[in-house]
């Protein structure tokens, strides 16, 4: 992990000096993570792909504004967050929530495909803010402080959003009455 960070830092320094191949390596290294974060946030594959392209283009154009290359992951996801929310605000009227049909309450003994569908459905029912907190913490592994920087909000807000999301997901994915606890 330490080597990876050093390599990213080195690639960023080279890209800043105009070595485009270094930036290409950075793109190939981060594109899958950024794409999956955007896909789970906006829900549409084509939108996520277009947004990913925009994210890496903006990152390239603003690479010299990145103060600390060690903060590249958070900085990149902050760009991705901003791009995703401008699309969500454009596509969805103010205050409207994502509503998906409720899935079956039971999660015991599910096959992998059922489990995948259940998780997707449970994530889709969360509000954008709650879902994003889960995506950044569970899937991207950011710390609370990093999430606060990405989302431009206090750490207390980040914790509140994540804890609420976990409670909602727990009710669906590990309900009490079905013996979800093992």
């Amino acid at each position, binding site marked *: 992990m330490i080597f990876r960070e050093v390599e990213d830092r080195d690639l960023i320094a080279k890209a800043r000096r105009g070595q485009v191949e270094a930036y290409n390596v950075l793109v190939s290294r981060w594109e899958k993570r950024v794409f999956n974060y955007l896909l789970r946030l906006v829900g549409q594959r084509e939108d996520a792909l277009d947004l990913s392209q925009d994210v890496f283009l903006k990152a*390239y154009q603003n690479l010299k504004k990145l103060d600390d290359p060690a903060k590249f992951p958070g900085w990149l996801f902050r760009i991705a967050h901003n791009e995703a929310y401008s699309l969500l605000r454009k596509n969805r009227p103010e205050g409207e929530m994502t509503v998906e049909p409720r899935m079956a309450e039971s999660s015991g003994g599910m096959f992998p495909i059922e489990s995948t569908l259940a998780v997707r459905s449970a994530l889709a029912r969360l509000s954008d803010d709650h879902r994003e907190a889960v995506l950044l913490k569970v899937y991207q592994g950011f710390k609370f402080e990093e999430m606060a920087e990405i989302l431009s909000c206090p750490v207390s807000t980040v914790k509140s959003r994540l804890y609420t999301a976990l409670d909602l997901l*727990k009710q669906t994915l590990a309900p009490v009455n079905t013996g979800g606890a093992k």
Partner: protein
Amino acid sequence: MSESEVRRMNCDIDLKAYVVGESTRPERGAVENHLRGCQSCREELDRLNLTRSMLASLEDEEIPRRIAFVSDGVFEPRWWQTMWRSGPVMGFASAALLAAAIVVHGFERTPVVDTAQIEKQVESRVGARVQAAVNVAQAKQSAEFAKVLNATESRFESQRKSDLATVQQAAEYYEKQMARFEVASNQGAGQ
């Protein structure tokens, strides 16, 4: 709220921070110590871990199309950006531009301006306009002068007639007086 959750309300530990790896080492020790004696928190921890593991089962999708690389053209700087960033190229371009400007300036034929002809034309046009203005003014003055002259002549004629009438009246008066004097002198001589 479930019975387990009600029982956990008195437990002062942050299980969610523990599950997502945000607890410090002392906090983790305190949680693990608490869990040994609290059935409700153990059940809650199991549910949170199950939720976490189910979320983790959702695998990342492969990106359907690679992000365009810098060499693909999307990220390529515009020609003017490339030139702007390159000092030697910019210097050479400036020098070439300056040289081209000098050459063009050297070959450029400045149009010959015949100032004498322009002056003549201007003079002719100004003269014509002045003459026209003078003619208009003269015509106006002549008309006014004729009008005043007619009025004066008319007034003079009437004055002359009036004077003649007065002179005639005076002459008649003197003639009558002379006649009276003559009659009176004749009568005086007869007595």
